[in-house]
């Protein structure tokens, strides 16, 4: 055991002393993570997307909820989404459909959406019957209606103060397996909110003009008119008038089926780490051939150390190096904001993933004839494996057959498991994947053992 540890430690020490290898292991994946983030982090994607199945649950009794859902059916959205309006009582069923990946997302507009984002409008309609959103600037209001508007305004002042501290939440409940689609849905909702923004800004302007007119005509007292006019300056709870920016008290929350949203940074941080882990371990596997070539392997074999200890020590060193590499990348990317998932799960995944990756290194080392050959094969396998499994493109956007094919690579299992951890998926959905990765590890090591027996013979 002591010799095994010494061998493993020596491997790690040699690996970490090689500046070129360090750049490959640590600096390059970090740089590529940031580059990929910059390139794709805004959600742009070259994959054509259409007819994204999305469920809309509008509980709002006012007009704004309707405005928001209408945008999903508008020509501006085209065939980007395939929306379905659902009834309130079917929310649980709708969430279940998202959980089952039948639809990309569920958009939930809360019951008091309109009243909370524009309390003045809702109250004015209740008191006067006037739909302020449909009010024109030259509309003739009766004195009762003017009084009602004034009262509605005064009441909305208080409510809008509350609204500032308690934003209304529009929830997008999205499947982690429809990441790009969820981002598209989010963009459409944001577009709808912007439309509401403009409408409310316009209404605010009209009411302000009405107030000014009332003041000029002496139809109301100065305090009331001034207060209403102030609404146009942004004190009515709905924000600033003038048409441009209205600060609606709305919070758009994207949740995945397990409560955590998709993060480009998290995705690329882990996928790049996995990619460069593969580079490191396939290169590590090459060291066995290199040791043979430079004569240190024969010297090891004639020391009082068994061939099995030497093999396990070498592989242990490669695993140790890989684990350290992943831990450093995990720490570094976390510092720049990436979330990898529950620490315990990430740690277990890293250990199993590195072991799995080392089996590929062992396989190459066992069957290649020269270090150069092993290096070339290792690089080819790493790059092809990376492309297949989603290191360069988001895995879920790749064709289904590619996703299945990629499961011959440790990369695919690693990215899949780490993504699930990032999404906060339950352990029960992750354990089968970990099990699959362990089986792949055993299979590759068995093949490698056959090759090693041939070599050591």
């Amino acid at each position, binding site marked *: 055991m002591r*010799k095994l540890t010494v061998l493993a430690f020596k491997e790690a020490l040699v690996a970490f002393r090689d500046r070129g290898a360090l750049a490959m292991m640590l600096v390059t994946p970090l740089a590529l993570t940031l580059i990929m983030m910059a390139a794709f982090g805004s959600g742009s994607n070259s994959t054509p997307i259409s007819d994204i199945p999305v469920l809309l649950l509008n509980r709002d009794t006012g007009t704004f909820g309707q405005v928001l859902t209408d945008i999903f059916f508008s020509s501006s959205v085209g065939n980007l989404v395939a929306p379905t309006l659902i009834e309130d009582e079917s929310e649980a069923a709708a969430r279940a459909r998202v959980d089952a990946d039948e639809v990309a997302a569920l958009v939930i507009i809360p019951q008091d959406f309109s009243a909370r984002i524009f309390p003045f409008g809702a109250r004015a309609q209740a008191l006067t019957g006037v739909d302020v959103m449909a009010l024109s600037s030259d509309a003739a209001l009766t004195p009762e209606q003017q009084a009602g508007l004034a009262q509605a305004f005064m009441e909305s002042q208080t409510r809008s103060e509350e609204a500032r501290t308690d934003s209304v939440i529009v929830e997008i409940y999205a499947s982690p397996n429809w990441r790009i689609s969820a981002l598209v849905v989010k963009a459409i909702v944001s577009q709808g909110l912007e439309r509401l923004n403009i409408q409310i800004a316009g209404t605010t302007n009209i009411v302000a003009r009405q107030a000014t007119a009332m003041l000029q005509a002496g139809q109301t007292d100065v305090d009331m008119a001034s207060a209403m006019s102030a609404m146009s300056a942004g004190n009515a709870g709905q924000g600033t008038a003038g048409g441009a920016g209205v600060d609606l008290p709305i919070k758009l929350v994207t949740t995945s089926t397990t409560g955590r949203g998709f993060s480009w940074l998290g995705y690329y941080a882990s996928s790049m780490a996995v990619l460069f882990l593969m580079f490191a371990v396939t290169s590590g596997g090459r060291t066995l051939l290199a040791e043979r070539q430079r004569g240190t392997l*024969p*010297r*090891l074999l*004639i020391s*009082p150390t068994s061939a099995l200890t030497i093999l396990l020590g070498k592989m242990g060193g490669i695993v140790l190096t890989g684990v350290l590499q992943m831990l450093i990348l995990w720490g570094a990317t976390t510092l720049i904001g990436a979330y990898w998932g529950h620490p315990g799960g990430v740690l277990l995944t890293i250990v199993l993933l590195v072991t799995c990756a080392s089996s590929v290194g062992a396989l190459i080392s066992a069957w290649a004839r020269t270090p150069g050959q092993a290096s070339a094969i290792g690089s080819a396998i790493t790059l092809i494996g990376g492309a297949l499994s989603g290191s360069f493109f988001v895995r879920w956007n790749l064709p289904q057959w590619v996703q299945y094919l990629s499961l011959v690579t440790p990369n695919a299992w690693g990215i899949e498991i780490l993504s699930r951890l990032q999404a906060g998926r339950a352990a029960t959905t992750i354990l089968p994947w970990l099990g699959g990765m362990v089986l792949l590890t055993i299979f590759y090591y068995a093949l490698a053992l056959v090759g090693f027996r041939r070599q050591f013979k």
Partner: protein
Amino acid sequence: METTALVEVQSLYKRYTPNGLYAVADVSFEIHTGELFSLLGPNGAGKTTTISVISTLLQPTSGAVRVAGHDVQRNPMAVRNVIGVVPQELALYDDLTAHENLRFWGEMRGLHGAELAQEIAEKLELMELADRAKERVSTFSGGMKRRLNLAVGLLGRPKLLMLDEPTVAIDPQSRRYILDWVKKLREQGVTILYTTHYMEEAQELSDRIGIIDHGKLIALGTFDELIQLVGQHETLRLRLLQEGGGAELAAALQSLEGDRIAGIIEASATNGEVLINVTSAEATLAAVIGTATGLGLSVRTIDIREPNLEAVFLRLTGRALRD
């Protein structure tokens, strides 16, 4: 010197492929405790293969090899515990320091703690590398690496030290250092198996010498015993002005052997030189030059050598050692 056999090699055969040529064929010898035994032969003669079998790196095709009473096939780990090997290649880790290399290889030999620390200090001192102990091997000169390579072989105080051509491709100063160091070890009673293709080294260092060629042990004995094989003959070494003329002259001398020019025993040409084994240089020199002149060849240099292993090899194989 004790006469106990530490190494026993009996009818050793080794070939690398089932139907291939034998790299070693019917080799038998013993190395006694405290003895310095040299295997002398040209490149590809089977020296490294023999050492590889004794050190358990290769399995013999047939025959028996025992080290300290342990059979290399049946009990390889016991053999490895008593041997130290200095391979021909520099088997070191360039990215580790000299100290780290010694520590690593010491651990692999089962040393640790204070014992290992003491051995490392001793070896660094012995090899005059103590002041460079913390520097990476990649910064070392070829001679320093060679010395460190030797130090690694000495870790664990092996009963049998095998040195496989330790002076290949190094500068004369380092070579001298290594030869002196081997002599010191020999004086300390360490049993040594030394392979070389430099007959001067074998001549200078060895208690006994085995001459190996084409996988076969063609002569075995002390230096004096081997010299007896060719008698007290001298060697004439001629360099000609004409490149390629050596073979012609050697053939001519060979055909005249025992005929017109009495005293020529063997003649061969190699590397632009003509080596002539003669009973008396003085008696034959004029005739040799005359033969060369008769062939239209001009002699550039002449060198007369006392009886040596080169002559023995030439006598036994008809070729020079460096062919």
